[in-house]
C-alpha cells in the first residue's frame, strides 16, 4: 500500500487528478498544505471509492476549513497521524 501526499489545490492544478489516476486500489491519499481544499464538498465527485482519504487538520484549520465544509470521505489527522500513516505504508509518494 502506498501513501500519496498531495499539496496543491485541485482547482488550479492537475496534481490530485494525476495522483488519483496513478494510485492502486487500497492506497491512501493524504492532503497537505493547499491540497486540503480538495477535501471540500465541491471536489468529492473526483474521488474513487477504492482508496482511503486523509486530510492534515493543521492545514485545514490554518485555512479556515472546519468539518462542516469537508466531505465525509475525509478523515482528519494531525502530524503524529501523518507519521503513523507513513509507518504503515510500504512507501510514500509525494505529488506536488
Amino acid at each position: 500500500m502506498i501513501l500519496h501526499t498531495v499539496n496543491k489545490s485541485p482547482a488550479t492544478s492537475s496534481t490530485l487528478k494525476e495522483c488519483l489516476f496513478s494510485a492502486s486500489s487500497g492506497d491512501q491519499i493524504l492532503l497537505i498544505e493547499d491540497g486540503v481544499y480538495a477535501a471540500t464538498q465541491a471536489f468529492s465527485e473526483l474521488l474513487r471509492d477504492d482508496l482511503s482519504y486523509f486530510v492534515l487538520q493543521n492545514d485545514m484549520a490554518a485555512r479556515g476549513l472546519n468539518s462542516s465544509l469537508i466531505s465525509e470521505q475525509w478523515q482528519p489527522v494531525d502530524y503524529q497521524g501523518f507519521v503513523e500513516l507513513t509507518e504503515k505504508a510500504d512507501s510514500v509518494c509525494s505529488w506536488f
Partner: protein
Amino acid sequence: MNYSIAIYGGPYSDQSAHSALHFARAVLKREHSIQRVFFYHDGVYNSSALVSPPQDEANVPAQWQELAKEHDIELVVCIAAAVRRGLLDEKEAKRYSKATHNLADGFTLSGLGQLIDAGMTCDRLITFGA
C-alpha cells in the same frame, strides 16, 4: 524506523520547509530517527546564513540547525542546485573566486547521490515538494 526527508521549497515563499519541520518533530516524538534532510531545487535557500526574517517570523535555517544538533541529523544541500543559486560554502566561494560565503553552520554541500543514498538506505524517504 530510520527516516530521511527531502525538501524542494524555499522558506518564506512556500510552506514545504515548514511542513517538513512539523513532520520531523512528529517523527522524533514517535521515537523514530532521522538520518538526513536533503535540500534540493529551491529548498537550498533554507541553508542561507543570511536569512533575516522579521521578529515575529520563524528563522527556518536556525530551526533546522537546532533540530539537527539535538538529534544528530545530517543537513545536506545539493551542491549543484545550491551553487547556481548563490549558496556557497568557503571552499566553493574560493573555487568561484567569490568574496564571501553564506552557507549556514551545520549544513553541508554535497552531491545528489546523497538523496539517492537516503532512498536506498533509509526505511522511509518523505518528500516535501514546492
